[in-house]
């Protein structure tokens, strides 16, 4: 199996497989992409879009939707893959990924893509924007939630901690933040670039409801999202997801870890084959 799932979460495993497949197809179009990250976060996106979140595929701006904010804009390939699977972006548009005049640029931007709620890419922006969205939703009396995904490397940014402090100050219980701890950033393993552990203790001390799970264990991720939604405390919620770069494609999982995993031209098909093999295993 690509990812662990038992009981009623098997449908999520199929969603996660299709998100990974979409991402690989886009990577093949461009000949490159942040595929290691897309594969590691596919399970979290499957749970977000097919278990936790409320939205209308035909109406991406629907006022009652939960907002999904992608802070790490280079994960756009993963989010496009999920938005395609969710029916917000047509499947055939995948062919345009990263091309001139495409709605699917390499780094995610709000004005380009339906369902893209922010312009990320300059790392460390997302949580601050999410704080504003949460304050705004509360002002409007909306019960919609804000989900925001950011990467462990972004923990180096001071602005992230400004937002962490303020989300607790404002008791933003409508905020569910997800940090992808794949322990990889541009210059090396994140924990070596700038030590951020013990992360859950730090976040709890900042006043957050914190859970830490294997981000590639669908049952665990589902349980964490459920607990984040049902927690009665007036606190923002953080789900720390430990993930594996290249997850679901064994030869990419085993490849030397890099922020930008090298995939040779002939390997895209091999990766798709490996993904399929995992699906039917």
């Amino acid at each position, binding site marked *: 199996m690509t990812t662990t799932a038992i009981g009623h979460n098997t449908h999520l495993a199929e969603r996660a497989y299709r998100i990974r497949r979409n991402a690989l197809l886009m990577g093949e179009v461009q000949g490159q992409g942040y595929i290691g990250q897309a594969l590691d976060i596919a399970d979290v996106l499957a749970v977000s879009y097919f278990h936790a979140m409320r939205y209308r595929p035909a109406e991406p701006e629907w006022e009652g939707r939960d907002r999904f904010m992608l802070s790490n804009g280079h994960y756009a390939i993963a989010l496009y893959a999920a938005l395609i699977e969710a029916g917000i972006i047509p499947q055939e548009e995948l062919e345009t990924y990263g091309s001139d005049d495409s709605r699917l640029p390499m780094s995610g931007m709000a004005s380009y893509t339906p369902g893209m709620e922010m312009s990320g890419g300059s790392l460390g*922006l997302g949580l*601050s924007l*999410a*704080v504003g*969205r949460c304050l705004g939703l509360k002002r*409007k009396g909306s019960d919609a939630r804000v989900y925001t995904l950011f990467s462990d490397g972004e923990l180096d940014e001071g602005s992230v901690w*400004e937002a962490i402090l303020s989300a607790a100050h404002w008791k933003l219980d409508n905020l569910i933040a997800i940090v992808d701890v794949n322990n990889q950033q541009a210059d090396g393993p994140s924990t070596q670039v700038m030590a951020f552990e013990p992360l859950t203790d730090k976040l709890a001390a900042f006043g957050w409801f914190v859970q830490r799970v294997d981000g590639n264990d669908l049952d665990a991720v589902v349980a964490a999202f459920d607990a984040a939604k049902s927690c009665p405390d007036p606190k923002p919620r953080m789900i720390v997801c430990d993930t594996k770069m290249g997850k679901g494609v064994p030869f990419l999982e085993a490849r030397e870890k890099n922020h930008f995993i090298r995939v040779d031209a002939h390997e895209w098909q091999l990766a798709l084959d490996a993904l399929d093999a995992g699906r039917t295993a």
Partner: protein
Amino acid sequence: MSRPTPAPATGAKPKLKTSAMIASIAGEGQRTKAAPFGNALVELGKSREDIVGLTADLAKYTDLHIFAKAYPDRFYQMGMAEQLLMGAASGLAHEGFTPFVTTYAVFASRRAYDFVHQTIAEENRNVKIVCALPGLTSGYGPSHQAAEDLALFRAMPNLMVIDPCDAHEIEQAVPAIAAHNGPVYMRLLRGNVPLVLDEYDYSFELGKAKLLRDGADVLVVSSGIMTMRALEVATMLERDKVDVAVLHVPTIKPLDTATILREAGRSGRLVVVAENHTVIGGLGEAVAGALLRAGVHPPFRQIGLPDEFLDAGALPTLHDRYGISANAMAASIKGWLG
């Protein structure tokens, strides 16, 4: 670079001291109005429930405390965190609110530049950034002197840039920028703000430069407090039979090129651009570029802050030192006329 040891104070003239942060920019005996921004925002807030106020620990120093007192549930204290401030304002705007965000100009422009760029300008959110201590209006030294705020914000697409002159103009600019759907940066004069333009039958219009007085010898093109200075200079130079016109350009971007070209194109006048800003990248170079591109070539001079880190000290001293006081400006213009 070390500074020379100052000589002990001697003689009758008292040494001027650096003013406290809360000090007014108004000269002695000048007519003023208290907190025009804060009061105008409270007034506007009566009919515009979408307006919210955010600050980064500077409500009292940007007159936003008046809004906070009138509408406590519409005020967000974001702490001393300018990046968060800008991001959160963008998020609130995305949810349909109209945030007025205050801090000092140095922090908005230098500390939070990328956040303004990405979360507000690039996303084209309806956020109004209103900042105290623009240009050289603090004696604290470079940490608080936003000599380059206009250059930085002019370079940002989508962002409208406003440099109002006085209390009269600020009162009118607040509803005008709120009515504009898009991001705006506005310089703020806070506390007891000089009142000047009410005597000139003047009304603020977004994007419009206005001729406040005509004159045959010199055309001063100015914004912000330098328009107030230019009007003083025009009166001073009447005694020397120098006839000075003053064109006030409160909207730095988009620039009212048509009016500037029309006035600068009238023959026989020295054109002097005066700004409370470094001579790099502000109104002076914006006007120069517009003139060059249009093939309009009058004699041209700039009055503005030099390209250096400015001294700490008392504002009147510093304004004299850097040539933006009325006296220094009058002397410069007389020198150029020969």
